[in-house]
């Protein structure tokens, strides 16, 4: 399927990047950034996940159809998070509507 066989050299460099990102994410956790902490931690995690998927899981040279299904998995996860947390957000922070149409 993946005619272009990925060389061990690439795997090793990807491995190095992942370990570096691990060190970064642990280091950043000790810096007080208040609400920015989880954002940074999660974006680093997303970068690591994308790298693993592209190179280790050969997504780079897989047919586009596989990309669609990977995208669908994360998109549906997004739907569940956005609509559920939207409800929790609306309950805590938005004031109760008093008047909508006069």
């Amino acid at each position: 399927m993946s005619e272009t066989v990925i060389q061990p050299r690439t795997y090793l460099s990807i491995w190095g990047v992942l370990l570096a990102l691990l060190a970064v994410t642990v280091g950043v956790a000790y810096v007080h950034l208040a609400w920015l902490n989880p954002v940074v931690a999660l974006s680093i995690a997303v970068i690591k996940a994308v790298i693993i998927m592209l190179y280790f899981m050969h997504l780079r040279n897989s047919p586009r159809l596989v990309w669609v299904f990977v995208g669908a998995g994360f998109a549906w996860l997004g739907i569940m998070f956005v609509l559920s947390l939207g409800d929790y957000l609306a309950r805590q922070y938005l004031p109760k509507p008093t008047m909508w149409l006069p």
Partner: protein
Amino acid sequence: MDLTVAHQFDDAEQQQEASTLGMWIFLATEILFFGGMFLGYTVYRAMYPHEFAAASSHLDVVLGTVNTAVLLCSSLTMALGVYSAQLGSRRMLALCLGLTMLLGAVFLGIKFYEYYQKYEEGLIPGSGFTWAGANPNQTSLFFVFYFIMTGMHALHMIIGLGLMTVLVLLTRRGRFTPSYYTPVELGGLYWHFVDIVWVFLFPLLYLIDRSS
């Protein structure tokens, strides 16, 4: 038509494409399976941020980091395993799979040691939960999700080790050739997925707020 192509497929290329697509769809179901737990975690972290931060900084960050590194190494050896399968060198493939299993076992060892530590400190949620700080109930919620998520992840790791054992046996029997190594590829996809789950679990559970 060699025997490795099942009767319902026309050729090996169609079989390979179908198997890979099937595996990725299965991984999509796993994404949503873990997603349910992540949603619960996110909701309660938003509700009780301080209790979650206090409980999180109670976890041993060194062991967590080491465990993440161990899993990243096991992903490397798994990828090299698939590479050697593509080359067709059976000895290298068996070696890589063995290394991957070893690293997986190390990960589980560290994990269960951490569980034992929690047991010692009386942090198992339920009746035996003791917590000196404020609001023990909300804090125990963090440990509930800690145990459920890492427990489910460990279960998937154990299943992964089972898959690897099967792959090693098949390799020894010379089942894989450079033109037919799909099971190794699928085993690799599964293993990397379990690694990705841990990549998200580690910061969310261990690194909530280490700065204070």
